[in-house]
């Protein structure tokens, strides 16, 4: 079957549009989460410095801002892996089904 026919059949398959929608919703949610965490942290620094400088424990040295900052770094790594894991298993499988269906 020609490439064009495959393309045409995929484009007309409602499952394809459903798939694109599902994945877009997921990546948009993940993007929003990342934006909220990062700009939340930045705005907290801009508006409430004393809070971030508060000590973790009385008599201690480390301030709340440090584990929070390291937390943002770790969150960034973790959220990327969560997305990639789902995209490379569930989404990849759905995508392959749609392509195979069109190629039949």
């Amino acid at each position: 079957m020609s490439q064009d026919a495959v393309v045409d059949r995929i484009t007309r398959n409602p499952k394809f549009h459903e798939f694109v929608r599902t994945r877009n919703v997921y990546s948009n949610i993940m993007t929003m989460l990342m934006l909220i965490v990062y700009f939340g942290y930045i705005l907290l620094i801009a508006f409430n410095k004393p809070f971030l400088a508060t000590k973790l424990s009385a008599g201690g040295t480390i301030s709340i801002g440090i584990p929070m900052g390291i937390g943002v770094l770790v969150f960034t790594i973790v959220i990327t892996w969560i997305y990639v894991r789902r995209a490379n298993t569930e989404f990849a499988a759905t995508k392959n089904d749609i392509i195979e269906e069109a190629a039949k």
Partner: protein
Amino acid sequence: MSPLKHILATTTLLAASGAALAAGADLGQAQKQDMNVIAIIMFAIFVGITMFITKWAAGKTKTAADFYTAGGGITGFQNGLAIAGDYMSAASFLGISGLVFATGFDGLIFSIGWLVGWPIITFLMAERLRNLGKFNFADVAGYRFDAGPIRTFAATGSLVVVAFYLIAQMVGAGQLIKLLFGLDYIVAVCLVGVIMMTYVLFGGMTATTWVQIIKAVMLLVGATFMALMVMLQFGFNFEALAAKAVEVHPKKDAIMGPGALINDPISAVSVGMALMFGTAGLPHILMRFFTVPNAKEARKSVAWATTWIGYFYILTFIIGFGAITNLIPNPADYYVGGEIAKGLKGGGNMPAVHLAGAVGGDIFLGFISAVAFATILAVVAGLTLSGASAVSHDLYASVWRHGNVDQATELRVSKITTVVLGIIAVLLGVVFEKQNVAFMVMLAFAVACSANFPVLFMSVLWKDCTTRGAVAGGFVGLILSVTLTVLSPAVWEASLGNPKGSALFPYASPAIFSMTAAFLTIWLVSMFDMSTQAAKEREAFPAQLMRSETGVGASSASGH
């Protein structure tokens, strides 16, 4: 003014304007040090090994596709390391650990900004880039658009970003080699030019990628060792490390909280946007997505890259604190004339290097110095390759020859361009030797997020986007971001020497305005574009969407 005061004043000045974004990339004017033989030997070994790899890669580089994408044969894990290598520059290693050394907490804020763009690339761009593109991001942005104008824009955007980045790297290389190897500035600049040209010219993307991977591994191993040694001194108790740092640091407890890095919210958000979305518009980074065989590997690449870069930033934070506790109590060894007031030997970017000597002796110091210089070499090679693709693949093959050009000719043009760019890079390094280039990387990120990113984003995701809209918006973003950066305090006052308060644009980064303006222009011009060309482009969207989402018809692993 004493050196330390000068460094502190400079840091505070940059910080006050929120432009510490620039500080991470500024290696400043350095004093030539004594010749460091061990470092030079280590560096020579590195060059020897990479030349061997280049020879091997040359045998595999036969077509333009091999030259630009390593034949698509790099795995996700390897590519992740190479991307991390592109991103972990000498400036970010020495600059961020130096900033942590000087200000503590603020250094952490800074490094976070450099990491958060990666998930955005993963969620929105990585897969679509891989599915639509062939050699560079212009393939993606111009997928359904009129090749002439869109590629002219994409090549302009790429070359501008590459040029600013190159200047920062070349000047950094010259300053660094005076500090670390005790050789002359001009020697460094020429060395970088010649070695880098050899990698790119003969080994193309294959050699560049492996140089990047080796360097990334060396940097990660070296930084891990330093952080472990520091933690070992404190029984792996960060509280003890922090307590000691607060005790000895001149700023005392202030290093535990946010300082002057972020003051006005507009600058804070604007710098944040430039870092976050600028990463998604850097041509030499985007180019790496075409070296992997498929979208799955492209996603894995970014996940690994994010992991390594994030891990590296956590290490630099520990290294900065380790430098505080190891260097400040021993001014006789590390400070000019043994006096803290006179500043660190070699300047504000040296804490990581001095710490290397403190925890690992002369051999390890030599190793870290060699790694720092190798880093610049590898980043410059990546930049040159991406500049060459903009000239040969976009301007020559697509715009000038309308795509009627065979692979052999395109490869030949690429190689000629590489030589020309290598010479230009050396000249830029010479011309800018005495200039303060701190703002260059900031400028590169501002242009990347205001010009390249909006065009890429809208062309891939918005069905009504047209050539006219994309090109108009892209150029608006490009011109506005450059103009506003020049008029900002970091350039207008700190670099051009105009009086304080005279900068017309008061914020640290133009991103919040220039990126918004680019998106608005793309939207407006596209909406009012009623040409037949525009209608054709809108009709072509479903096919583009199909390919970007499924990869059907995408350039295959090799041969393209």
